[in-house]
């Protein structure tokens, strides 16, 4: 409903521009990760690499609804959240390359992107491990009368962990400003949601903790943004935590190590027909808001940005080995 609301809102320059921003963000994430996949095969990027391809509308839509001072807690599949949040692509790429100019100075890699200036609190690679952290950020905000909202992203698999239960209960019990964003891509690695949960309706499960909870089409960035916007507004108005189940799908394997034996090809193909980028392009085209030319320029622009980021990362310095034990303690304590 709220999605239709935006889609049909009297179109004006601002709206057009905003939709173009959403498109740019999603396309940037897509192309960036396609480049990362190649760089991984070229062994420029190592460790675990989890791609977000197909899920771009979730991070893009939710984060578009956040204010500049809001907080984001994410997982190991967080390139999209970092870029949508405005973390410099150069810094993200450099991080993947393990360089000193990376957003975590090369210490985090793909799974641990951090950027204080953009309110990105990681990049947590323990499934559900970021949830209590998000509750704590919100607790501090509440105790300090800040009106910040914390968006906490996690997957359908994470919802089986004890920390999911404990965190939702705590946030609801203490009425904390957290927007729980469950990226339900139907699989936890190779395990289908029906093998993860006795009841697979996660929004329904969340509602039993006393939070407002809704399921949203995670392939429709406008629907995601609208749902997130009303949730964020309600939370900021003091309404307590809310939960969004964002129904989506990853077009690629779980990680670069995964041969994807467990998913039916037809299922993948069906979901690819719902590509969130194609969907937005279609809306814009229908409204006559996107020309071929604009699209070509956008692609070129992004391609160039990525090329620059790669070149910069290649050229960037490595953290000196002498600094290995730096940042274990704030002061240079020993052990």
């Amino acid at each position, binding site marked *: 409903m709220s999605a239709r609301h935006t889609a049909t809102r009297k179109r004006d320059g601002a709206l057009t521009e905003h939709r173009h921003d959403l498109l740019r963000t999603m396309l940037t994430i897509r192309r960036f990760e396609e480049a990362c996949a190649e760089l991984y095969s070229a062994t420029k990027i190592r460790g675990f690499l989890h791609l977000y391809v197909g899920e771009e509308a979730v991070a893009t839509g939710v984060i578009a609804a956040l204010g500049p001072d809001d907080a984001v807690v994410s997982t190991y599949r967080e390139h999209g959240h970092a870029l949508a949040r405005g973390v410099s692509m150069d810094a993200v790429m450099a991080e993947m390359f393990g360089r000193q100019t990376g957003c975590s*100075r090369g210490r985090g890699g793909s799974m641990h992107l951090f950027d204080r200036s953009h309110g990105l*609190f990681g990049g947590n690679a*323990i499934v559900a491990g970021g949830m209590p*952290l998000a509750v704590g950020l919100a607790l*501090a905000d509440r105790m300090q009368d800040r009106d910040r909202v914390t968006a906490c992203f996690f997957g359908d698999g994470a919802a089986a962990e*004890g920390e999911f239960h*404990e*965190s939702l209960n705590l946030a609801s019990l203490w009425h904390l400003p957290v927007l729980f964003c469950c990226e339900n891509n139907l699989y936890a690695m190779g395990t289908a949601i029906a093998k993860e949960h006795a009841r697979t309706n996660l929004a329904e499960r969340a509602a039993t903790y006393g939070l407002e909870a809704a399921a949203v089409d995670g392939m429709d960035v406008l629907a995601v943004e609208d749902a997130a916007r009303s949730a964020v507004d309600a939370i900021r108005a003091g309404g307590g935590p809310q939960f969004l189940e964002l129904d989506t799908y990853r077009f690629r394997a779980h990680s670069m190590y995964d041969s994807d034996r467990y998913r039916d090809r037809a299922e993948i193909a069906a979901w690819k027909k719902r590509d969130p980028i194609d969907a937005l392009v279609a809306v814009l085209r229908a409204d006559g808001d996107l020309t071929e030319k604009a699209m070509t320029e956008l692609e070129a622009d992004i391609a160039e940005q990525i090329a620059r980021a790669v070149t910069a990362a290649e050229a960037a310095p490595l953290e000196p080995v002498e600094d290995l034990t730096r940042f274990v303690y704030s002061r240079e304590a020993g052990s």
Partner: protein
Amino acid sequence: MTDTLETTYREALREAIRDAMRADDRVFLMGEDVGDYGGCFAVSLGLLEEFGPDRIRDTPLSESAFVGAGIGAAIAGMRPIVEVMTVNFSLLALDQIMNNAASLLHMSGGQFNVPLVIRMTTGAGRQLAAQHSHSLEGWYAHIPGLRVLTPATLEDARGMLATALGDPDPVLIFEHGSLYAMKGTLAADAGAVDIDHAAIRRPGTDVSLITYGGSLGKTLEAAVLLDQDGVSAEVLDLRTLRPLDDEAIMDSVRRTHHAVVVDEGWRTGSISAEISARIMEQALYDLDAPVERVCTAEVPLPYAKHLEAAALPQPAGIAAAAHRTLG
């Protein structure tokens, strides 16, 4: 000299919390039963009335979530004191402590430090059996990014918290369950203490008895027994298990040439092994005999009084170990 007051370890901890909360509104206490109940060991008794339920915050039985919430709150500008009832239950929060509290600063390339204090009770001796008697502070001392404190005296119970709260990184404070009722006198103006150095609690010349926390009392008793046998034992209280004060340890060993480490942890893989290894690495040629270790027997602690007593380090056993090193 300043005037003194009669107090207990428990009251000293409470006064330390009260001071910290009065001095800084970013400080709050959070944990199971810290409020309405008054703290499972009555440490926070009365604080709810003074500071209210927001700052003396009762939590559900959700160790992982409320410890993790403490981490998040610390990052976001608060100065939480999280109380985990006992180290036994802290296993449920260990993932948060190791993978978030201890790792965030480094993983983020220096962006997110975690000024969090976690207090927990440790140790055996009250017939609480296998699931309530662990001494796992040695494990926590294994984790880079943490500081581990073990107050064994009234001064340290009173003074370590303030220093810990001033630390930009996570600090764990282990309170041995047998110490809460310990009585004594404390300077009326007692306050923050240094947490970087071990302390000689009894000077001696023949053997160094190296210990911490709940074992300090038993070790001092052993020193008395040794004295009766004509052996002058020095008792070193480590105070901080991470980082260890190597200098103080080696300095004592270089003077006495004999060392016994007393640790309530299970022997294998205990902090006593680390201390013994460091002594060999840094002072082998000053030793006249192998370093002895007096630890807890490697058994899930039994309930029966006589079995528990037999499993734990005791003064006679400590003294015997000292005699062995002296040959």
